[in-house]
């Protein structure tokens, strides 16, 4: 489109010099104008902020290039924060994907009543958005020291999950358990279309060829689903890795995950080292991008058979 138009203008200019014919009416390029807000938005609120952080991560207070901020990440406290964030995100993503897959298979392929399916899908839409602060409140009311389930277990089985079970809601497993509340529904929502896409005939064809249910899933069903599962897995990972509200409301600054660390860093920006904050943020971008790159590479290998 664009090269053609430019050529047109050049020609009309030269022709004006020679014969001076009436200028062709200038058309307003509506289509480009309509896309402009989107592009401006992307640049102002996605690209520039990201680049500014990347730049900031390699700049010292005086504005000179430095690796010191990156080097500053390699302290025990910061590495531990990254590590626990990765573990929580990984655990909640993998568990969320597995449980979500099992639930989706159960409601779509398990011959359960039809109404159940739409009920689960609607609930998943709600629960996947029921994150952040209210979710933390709900889990405190359930599994906190005075939570209903904690008390019921203590009354019925005379077992204190905190004192005797070693459980703590404000810990790795506590947070993972809480994150599952939005991770599982997100998995259900994103994987359901892929499971719907598994044709009944594939299963029937495999059966006539002698395959049992396990063999069908082993050779056909799961390999077809695998790229979708993997894609959702990286989405779930990023989703948990960037989450802060739930953790903040649950644990305050008790649990040293990287988002909480960065949050504190931003709040105290004026006092502390802004370069280190940028480096922390860059580290987060690198990790979530890495999760996506791993997905893209593995999916490209697994999707050879797709158009």
């Amino acid at each position: 489109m664009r090269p053609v138009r430019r050529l047109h203008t050049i020609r009309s200019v030269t022709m004006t010099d020679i014969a001076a014919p009436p200028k062709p009416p200038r058309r307003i390029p509506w289509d480009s104008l309509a896309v402009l807000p989107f592009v401006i938005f992307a640049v102002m609120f996605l690209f520039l902020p990201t680049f500014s952080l990347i730049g900031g991560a390699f700049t010292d207070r005086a504005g000179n290039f430095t690796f010191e901020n990156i080097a500053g990440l390699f302290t025990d406290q910061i590495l531990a924060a990254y590590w626990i964030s990765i573990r929580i995100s990984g655990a909640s993503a993998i568990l969320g994907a597995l449980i979500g897959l099992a639930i989706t298979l159960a409601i779509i392929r398990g011959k359960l009543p039809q109404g159940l399916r739409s009920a689960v899908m609607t609930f998943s839409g709600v629960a996947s958005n029921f994150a952040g602060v209210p979710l933390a409140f709900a889990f405190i009311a359930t599994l906190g020291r005075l939570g209903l389930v904690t008390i019921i277990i203590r009354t019925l089985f005379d077992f204190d999950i905190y004192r005797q079970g070693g459980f703590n809601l404000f810990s790795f497993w506590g947070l993972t358990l809480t994150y599952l509340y939005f991770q599982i529904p997100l998995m259900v929502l994103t994987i359901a279309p892929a499971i719907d896409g598994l044709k009944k005939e594939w299963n029937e064809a495999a059966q006539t060829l002698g395959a049992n249910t396990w063999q069908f899933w082993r050779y056909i069903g799961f390999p077809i689903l695998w790229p979708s599962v993997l894609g959702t897995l990286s989405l779930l990972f990023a989703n948990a890795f960037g989450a802060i509200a739930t953790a903040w409301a649950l644990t305050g600054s008790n649990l040293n995950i990287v988002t909480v660390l960065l949050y504190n860093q931003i709040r105290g920006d004026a006092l502390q080292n802004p370069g280190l904050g940028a480096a922390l943020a860059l580290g987060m971008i690198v990790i979530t991008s890495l999760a996506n790159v791993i997905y893209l590479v593995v999916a490209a290998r697994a999707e050879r058979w797709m158009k």
Partner: protein
Amino acid sequence: MKSQKFWAWLIFVLGAAYFIIPLAATFEFSLRMRRGEYSFDAYASVFADPYFASSFAYSVIVGLFTIVVGILVVVPAVYFVRLRMPWLRPFMEFVTLLPLVIPALVLVYGYIRLYGSSSFIPFTGSVLGTDILLTCAYVTLALPYMYRAVDNGMRTIDIGTLTEAAQIAGANQLQIIGQIILPNILVAILSGAFLTFAIVIGEFTIASLLNRPAFGPYLVGIGTNRAYEPAALAIISFIITWGAMGMINVLGRFAPRTSARTD
């Protein structure tokens, strides 16, 4: 065959327990404010708190602006890219995926650094500017969902053919968008709008770092100071989310279907 059904039921029941028990426990907890008996005192206390009303109203208003700006940014772009500039599609897909990859916390940090009071666009230099920045941040946050909703809507109605039909009937560009395209994708847009609303209404990170009196930061404040009100607020939030999602579901029944579908 039978065992398959058994496992399906077992998984379903366990899953349902995991999702329903916290809700039931929270509700039960929210009723325990008065000693020895169940009451709605916690809810009364929440509704009596002037900060509840003001922060909630603030978040609703920001949510509405977010929806309007989101529609204005996304709808024309998706329409013209689908119609005239399909080569821009990969770029749009990439851009709309970014908010899912880059954590909101990181983005807002970028905004604070970039648009601080001494920068070239000092958004955070004034209250109004900060409100605008917050709205734009929410538009960015909701971009993946708004884009997907609108894009799906436009795919189902085959905008290319509709546009050509309207052009032959003599409609101009504005009439086509206003009278043909918009009414047909209204349901899709509204789905995106309610999803946006559900995301914005309880958002904590960005609002708190921009120091705006939104509902999310208010919730955290209550959480640290009170015992029973947080449970009541969790139930209220759940109902709001359910309402927004329920609206999407109801709207879905009015969505135009492709001609290929016979159901």
